[in-house]
Each structure stands twice: as structure tokens, then as C-alpha cells.
């Protein structure tokens, strides 16, 4: 047991017993502890869904935001004060449904944010409808005759669209997930971790007995995360009976903050605006 008590709140998580969110909760607290963070070193942004309830259970700065809009809110926080470590989390439902446009744009912007997707392939909080990552044929309360659409592939999208750190974790492998979160936070740029997060109540077919025998670690398979083509090959290989977890893709590119002239030296929050004079500008206009 790691001493991650300082990130606990007085509330006990209200998730169902066995929920994959417990693994993510524990891994986040452990990662913050191992990184030596204080409670006010991290700002977390939460979406709406069971994952969003995490806001009550982890003691850091927290913004419980809008369904699907965690990444724009997180981007606003990072651009206003990029000294903060910003970690956004949301479910597959909000992040890859209405939030998918924001997801792709945040990838191409390469802002230094860590984004964790609680991917249970179902809508849990609304008690069991199909989600953007539900497989074809999936029968749910809103798809009694089976899902027609093809599921979203968040990892392939992230790799193609410019995210510089793309990984998959599993709630059943907490130490591994902790290590992924630490590396994602340390990484400079947009880091995505899609976490296989069993919903034992509303999607029991994709629970621990399904994932445990299937997951394998990419690092054990000798995968080089800088190899774009191989990363994409692993990300696209969704029909294989073996499910890779670990870092798919990781490269170094300038972040948005580093590329922006105003943000390069110091965060916006540190700019002093009390003695700004516009007389020079007025003179310039007068002369022209």
C-alpha cells in the first residue's frame, strides 16, 4: 500500500462495488504521490458520467465541467496558468461522443495536458445505453436490436491527429496504470491514456474475466513507442483476441505553450497588467 492518503477526501466513492473507476482512482493518487505532488500542484477537470463523480473523491483542484467539454476547460486552465499540472478525465460517452471534436483538436494543439478516458464501452450513469466505443451488435437499453455503428477508435485517432503520448491502461493492472499516468504527466505535450475500465453492472461482458486473459504489455512485446507505423498497427488491431496495454506512441514535439510567444517565458497568470501604458500605441496610430 502506498501512502497516498493525502489525496483522499472525506467522501467514500459511490461507484458500484467492483467498478473499474476504483483502479483509476487508486492509480491517480499513487501517481501524484510518487511524483511528489502536493494537493495544489494538480488541477483535474472532470466530465459528466460515473467518471465525473471522481471529483468528490480526490483532493486536488477540481473542475466538474460539462458533458464532453473537459478538454476545452482543461485547455483554458493550462493556457491561463501552465505551471499547474492539468489532468482531464472523462468517460468514453462524453469524451468520444459530443466531445470527440474537442478531442481531435486538443490532439493537434499538443497542449501539455494529461487526458484519461474511463472507457467502459457503455453509459453507466444513465444505467446502460450504448456508447461510442460499444462494439457492433452490442445490445443495450437503447439498442435492443444491437448497435449498427462501428465503434470509435480513440488511440488510432490520437496517433493520427498529433497527440504526442498515446497509451492504453487497464483498471485491473493498477501498478502498470500508475506508471503510465506518471509518464503521461511527465511528458511534455498532450498525453492520452485510454483506460479499459470495466462496468460490472451495465456492461458485465467486458469485465475482468474478459480482459484479464487478453491484455498484454507492449513493453514486453518489444514495441518501440517512437515507431509510428507499428503504433498505429497496434491501435488499429481491434479484432485480435490479445489486447495490448502500455505506451503505443510517444514522440517529442513543441507544445502549444512553448510555441506561443506570450506563454513561452511565463504563464498568463504571472503577467502584471497594473502599469500597462497604451500611449505608444496611440502615438503609432496618430502617426499613421
Amino acid at each position, binding site marked *: 500500500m502506498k501512502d497516498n492518503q493525502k489525496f483522499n477526501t472525506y467522501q467514500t466513492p459511490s461507484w458500484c462495488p467492483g467498478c473499474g473507476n476504483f483502479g483509476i482512482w487508486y492509480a491517480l493518487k499513487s501517481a501524484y504521490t510518487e511524483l511528489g505532488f502536493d494537493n495544489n500542484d494538480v488541477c483535474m477537470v472532470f466530465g459528466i458520467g460515473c467518471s465525473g463523480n471522481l471529483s468528490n473523491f480526490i483532493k486536488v483542484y477540481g473542475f466538474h465541467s*460539462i458533458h*464532453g467539454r473537459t478538454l476545452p476547460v482543461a485547455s483554458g486552465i493550462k493556457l491561463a496558468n501552465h505551471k499547474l499540472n492539468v489532468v482531464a478525465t472523462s468517460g468514453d460517452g462524453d469524451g468520444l*461522443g*459530443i466531445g470527440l471534436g474537442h478531442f481531435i483538436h486538443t490532439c493537434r494543439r499538443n497542449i501539455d495536458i494529461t487526458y484519461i478516458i474511463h472507457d467502459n464501452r457503455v453509459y453507466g450513469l*444513465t444505467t446502460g*445505453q450504448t456508447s461510442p466505443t460499444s462494439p457492433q451488435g452490442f445490445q443495450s*437499453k*437503447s439498442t*435492443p436490436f444491437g448497435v449498427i455503428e462501428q465503434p470509435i477508435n480513440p488511440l488510432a485517432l490520437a496517433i493520427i491527429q498529433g497527440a504526442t503520448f498515446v497509451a492504453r491502461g487497464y483498471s485491473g493492472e493498477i501498478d502498470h496504470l500508475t506508471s503510465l499516468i506518471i509518464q503521461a504527466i511527465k511528458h511534455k505535450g498532450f498525453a492520452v491514456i485510454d483506460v479499459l475500465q470495466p462496468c460490472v453492472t451495465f456492461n458485465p461482458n467486458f469485465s475482468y474475466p474478459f480482459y484479464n486473459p487478453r491484455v498484454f504489455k507492449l513493453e514486453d512485446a518489444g514495441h518501440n513507442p517512437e515507431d509510428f507505423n507499428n503504433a498505429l498497427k497496434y491501435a488499429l488491431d481491434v479484432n485480435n483476441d490479445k489486447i495490448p496495454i502500455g505506451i503505443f506512441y510517444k514522440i517529442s514535439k513543441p507544445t502549444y505553450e512553448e510555441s506561443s510567444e506570450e506563454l513561452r517565458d511565463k504563464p498568463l497568470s504571472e503577467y502584471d497588467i497594473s502599469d500597462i501604458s497604451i500611449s505608444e500605441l496611440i502615438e503609432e496610430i496618430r502617426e499613421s
Partner: protein
Amino acid sequence: MNKLFSRGSDALAMAAIDSGLKFYAGYPITPQNDIPEFLSRELPKVGGTFVQAESEVASINMLLGASSCGFRVMTSSSSPGISLMQEGISYLAGSELPAVIVNVSRWGPGLGGIGASQGDYHQATKGGGHGDYFIPVFAPYSVQEMYDLTVKAFDVADKYRTPALILADVMISLMRETLIRRYPEGIKPPEKSWAFGERKGERQKIIKSLYLKGNELEVHNWKLHKKFEEMKKNEILFDKYLCDDADIIIVAFGMVARVARSTIELARENGLKLGLFRPISLVPYPEEELFSLTKTCKNFFVIEMNTGQMLYDVMRILGRNVNIRFYGKPSSYVPTPDDLFNKAKELFNI
């Protein structure tokens, strides 16, 4: 005709099917999931299409498309989802496309909560989207009205080529009571010559809400307004209960009106003559009908599950020569008949 013991949400969904609904798009949100879940099972059985879209934004825009093909279309959501749909509702109104939109409203602003609320009155009745338009709004207060007003909403939507809104609430949507399934006449929607179709040799049709030339936008806006004036003449719905001899008339809609009926019985047992005026169509509002009550009564008690929204309409309609008191309950807990009776005594110094 068919007598059932039904939940409000199921009554609404049945009414939509009985009205000839052919296309539904929606997105999960508490507390209205029972409507899409019912339709996901039942709509395909009558040759309709059910889609769970990626968002409320997608849902309302799918309605724009399906409605322009001439089908009866519907979506349902709850408050935050209805906020997301406002752009589409404005475009539906501007493009004169019929559609039925159901708001099983919850608490706001923002994420709010999932309990019973009437916080969306302003958004529903004053046009939550941009532009100069009104859409008809109906507020059911029983399971039977969830059915009847849905049938009405489809008819009004087609008749005036306008989106129509059902402003429901959690209490009415999730409770069960007797329902008479009426199977309305006119399941075949009226012929829509403006809709896209496969009629050969037709001239080009463009559905739009963009008017740039000369004064055509002004003409268009006055056309929309004229439809609203026609609705005022023909589509007003209201209910009066023991108003004739009332010393105080409660003005309330939806679930609050339902509680108020019990309050009135309680008050009358205790010698206080209360009455109830209940607007059923919130747009168009039964203004003349409410105002006419000032002939016999000078005390009006507005009760809402918000901090005072319909209150502004009542004050505008009744003016300053009557005594208006307000009780607002902006929380998830529906007030009891006793609460309202005690408030009436307190606010009117009885």
C-alpha cells in the same frame, strides 16, 4: 380506446407512436431515458427509425433533416440537453419545420441536479435560441396529459409548420396512473407539399432560414409572427378549478398545479376558499382567461418550482391592481399540499 396503468414517459412515447411518429433521435440523460428506451423497442415495430445520436446537437440536427422529408419527428431530453438543442430549435423555427421536442426538465443552471424542477420556464416560453420567434409549449400535469398533449403537439407542429415543445417534469414523467390510450384520428400527417420527396418534375426546393435580399427577412419574421397570432386564437389550453367563489386563486402549471389541487381541497375543508388557474399551453399563454378572473378575485398566488419565472407573465397580465404573492421552491423536493396551504396563510396574512 384502451385503458392502461401507465408511466408518464410511456404515455408520451405511446402518444408519439399513435400520432404517426416516424423518426426519433436522442441521447441518454437522466431523468428522461425511459422515453428513448421505450421508443428504441417499439418504434421499429411500426416502421419508424430510432437513433441514439452522439449528442443532443446531433439529435436536433437529425430532426431538421428528417422533418424536411415530411415525416413526423421527435426528440426528448432534459434541461442541459435542451440547452444544447437551442441552435437547432431556432433553425427549425426559422426554416418552418415541424418537430416535437420533449423536455423532462431537471435542475439548473449548469449541471444542477436530476430532481424535479420548473427552472426552464423562461427558456421554454421566451425562445431559448436566438432570433425573433415563439414556439408552442405545452405543460402536462397528469399521465393522461402526457399522452393528450403529445398528440396535440404533433398536430400543432404540422398545422403551423413549427417546432413544438412539451415542458414536462420528473414527477409527471415517472409516476404511474390511469391512462386512456385514445388512438387519435389523423395518424396520417397532412400532405406536405414543401417537403423533399420523389415527386418527378418538381421545381427545386430549398429549405433554409437565411434571407439576405431586400426586406425578405422582415417579411419572413412577420410571417412567423402571424403564425404565432393564429396560435393565440386557436391553440390556447387552460384549466380552472373552483375559481368562481375563490378568495385566492393559485396560478401554477405542471406538477405544482397537481399538488395545488390537493391544497385547495385541504384549504376548503379548513374554511379557506382557494381556486386554481392552470395554464396548459404556456405558449400561447391564456392571458385573457387569466385576466378575466380579476372580475371576481383580487388575490393571486403564483407557485413555481423556481425562484419566480412565470410570475413575470402573471404580473404582466394582471397588472398592479390585484394582490399577487409568490412562493418559489427551487429544490428537488416537490412541496406538499400542507406546505402550500401554510404558505398561502402566511403570505396572505390569514
